[in-house]
């Protein structure tokens, strides 16, 4: 290194900031503080809030949506989006209900739910990765298409009469007040957290979200990773369809109506950048809890759902606007 001799190589550390400082500046902390504040406000506002059974019931407000949100978080971090998740639920549920007519049992129904989820995910994935179409538009289309097929099959009818063992998947308790769905929520939170933050695959997801071209030039199979993410999102929608169908005990084409926007809201509130490249599963978990607590807490006060949604809309904008506003004002 003959030329570098003139100047001394500068020494620099691995990291400038310690772990403590990184946590202090994190989005997750802000969100966590909000969650705690909402928790306290809820306990003050209603005497019924701090009851294990009530809290357990309240988890249904977010468990199914958040399972999809985990996969959606990865998808959004990679720079894509899937607005068809609620459509997939409708189609998967319809397929299960249809199979039920032929006496298929619980394991078969579950397999069908998962398979339809995967197939729908694959359909989106192929359109996006093979044909290179923008995912937001493709999935606006498949959102109508998937639910539309449900309508064609079901029309004004409903499928019901699911066996108890199947219903348990949506209503059952594993231990005390801990529902099966809540258990799934925790398990998936851990799995997705590890996958995103601790594996090479997760690193690839971040890289693709930040710069897909450089990712490709670095030997990452961008299309394959995105395909996997669409498949995962489809699969999670299938799982959500199984839980929701089990919980409702019936299938109608309008099932899970408008959930796609709620799932995206949850992901974005969790600090995942809608532009891709940034976000964490912890954030999504806290966001799920925040949304669950807000809806349940306001529900206890009999606030109409549409007013709750104002609250959540304002929370979404507020939580994202606040840090930016502060930096802006501080810079003045």
């Amino acid at each position, binding site marked *: 290194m003959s030329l570098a001799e003139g100047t001394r190589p500068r020494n620099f550390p*691995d990291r400038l900031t310690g772990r403590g400082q990184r946590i202090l500046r994190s989005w997750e902390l802000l969100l966590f503080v909000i969650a705690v504040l909402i928790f306290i406000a809820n306990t003050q506002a209603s005497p019924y809030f701090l009851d294990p059974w009530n809290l357990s019931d309240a988890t249904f407000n977010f468990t199914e949506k958040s399972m999809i949100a985990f996969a959606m978080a990865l998808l959004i971090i990679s720079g894509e989006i899937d607005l068809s998740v609620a459509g997939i639920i409708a189609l998967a549920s319809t397929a299960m209900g249809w199979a039920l007519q032929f006496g298929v049992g619980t394991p078969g129904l579950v397999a069908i739910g998962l398979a339809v989820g995967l197939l729908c995910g694959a359909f989106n994935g192929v359109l996006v990765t093979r044909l290179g179409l923008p995912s937001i538009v493709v999935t606006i289309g498949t959102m109508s298409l998937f639910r539309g097929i449900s309508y064609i099959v079901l029309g004004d009818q409903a499928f019901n009469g699911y066996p108890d063992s199947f219903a348990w998947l949506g209503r059952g308790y594993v231990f005390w007040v801990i529902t099966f769905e809540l258990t799934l929520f925790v398990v998936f939170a851990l799995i997705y957290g590890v996958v995103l933050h601790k594996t*090479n695959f997760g690193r690839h997801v971040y890289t693709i979200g*930040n710069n897909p071209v450089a990712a490709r*030039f*670095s030997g990452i199979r961008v299309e394959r990773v995105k395909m996997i993410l669409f498949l995962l999102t489809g699969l999670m929608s299938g799982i959500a369809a199984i839980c929701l169908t089990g919980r409702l005990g019936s299938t109608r084409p309008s099932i899970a109506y408008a959930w796609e926007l709620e799932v995206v809201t949850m992901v974005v509130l969790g600090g995942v950048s809608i532009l891709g490249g*940034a976000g964490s599963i912890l954030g999504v978990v806290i966001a799920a809890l925040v949304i669950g607590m807000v809806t349940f807490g306001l529900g206890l006060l009999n606030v109409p759902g549409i007013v709750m949604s104002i609250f959540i809309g304002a929370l979404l904008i507020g939580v994202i606007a606040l840090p930016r506003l502060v930096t802006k004002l501080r810079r003045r």
Partner: protein
Amino acid sequence: MNYSSETGRGVPVLADPVLRLSGITKTFPGVRALSDVELALYPGQVTALVGENGAGKSTLVKILTGIYQPDGGVIEVDGQASKFPTATAASAAGVTAIHQETVLFDELTVAENIFLGHAPRGRFGLIDWTAMNARAQEILTRIGAQISPKTPLRELGIASKHLVAIARALSVDARVVIMDEPTAALSSAEIEELYELVERLKGEGKAILFISHKFDEIFRIADRYTVFRDGEMVDAGMIADVTENQLVEKMVGRAVDTIFPQRNSNPGEDVLTVAGYSHPTEFADIGFTLRRGEILGFYGLVGGGRSEFMQALFGVTKPSKGACRIDGKIAVIRSPAEAIRKGIVYVPEDRGAQGAVTAMPIFQNVTLPSLKATSHKGFVRMAEEFALARKYTERLDLRAASLDQNVGELSGGNQQKVVIAKWLATQPKVIILDEPTKGIDVGSKAAVHDFMAELAAEGLSVIMVSSEIPEILGMSDRVIVMREGRIAAEFDREGLTPETLVRAAAGYGGEAAA
């Protein structure tokens, strides 16, 4: 502080400066890009602005054109303090620029690209398309560009796009014309046209600020110079009073060996053999062999298809025909991942888009293609990543605040080092460097050259794509010249002259050498 009296040294001061800057300061979060900078531009004179990468040259251009606002300092136009809150304000004050990045719109026509923001207006203040096309044609003819104003920009090649950018700069009636590395994307013939244009503008009494890393052109067209180092103005004067070496020394703050590293090349066995590589539209019938420890130069005019071929070799695009052998074994490369596995890596030309992931930290950029090595059963191991990143960035003498700093916060030269470190960490057999020193200052450039020599000495085979003749001549063991997607000639280094190269690149009997 009076600029002209300080640096006058017997130079006749012709007229008052059109534009004078004093005390200009600009900081970005964590970076002081400019501090207390002085500059004066005189009518009918070309002032060259030189400095290493990240010295703050482009930042100054952006301040002069209203894109950035300075934190402090005064801009005087004709002795009047002025402010440029927007690009429109700057052009209204008669300051126009050809920016370093091409800042054009693919979906709009050439004419509109030239006139966007100041289109001719007709009745009711509505845009007059007829007048716009006519005036665009006029300007294009004036700069000798054979482009129809109605063509959508996306249909043009990179050099023509650059001509459109130049036409745009000339479409406002300016008194100050700034050119930030205007020749970087042009072929030699077009560069000649540009020089003529500069002469004409001088004759019209315009003040010109010319930024370049190429000293031959600075000494050819500039009247004055100003040197920036680390955001400060360190010197200014008349070109006639300095030598190239003096200028370089002022820039870097030390003497720099601009001679290429001395190498004893004794290439070993064949590492890579390419035969009959073809593509439907980009290149045809490319074949050569690369030996161990060899540096193979690829020369050609910009747009000659070298990058396209290299990317096909690296698996980014698919060739329609052709085969390659690595270490004698047939190798099928369908994706970059496969290429990396087989020991071929590619340092792309477009650092920002293809090389670095600017929003991610240095260490993660470096380990990106080597994750298999630093991880355990698919799970990342941060400590090993830091160790690997440290090893290779230290070797390249990277300058950064920390290893978890985002790559986007680094200067161009240091970003290039991160990209090279990333590829070296995979311990490749063949490294393809596509314009490795494009837009890099002399200091970093020499470091990259030394490093290349070192790698070759260690037994790595290097393919170097470059459009700079000195670099090609100084570094290569052998040179392949590509033209219009085909191999036009192959030369040994011995006795190779610039003339031969240029002739081969332009086609025998074609335009004369620059």
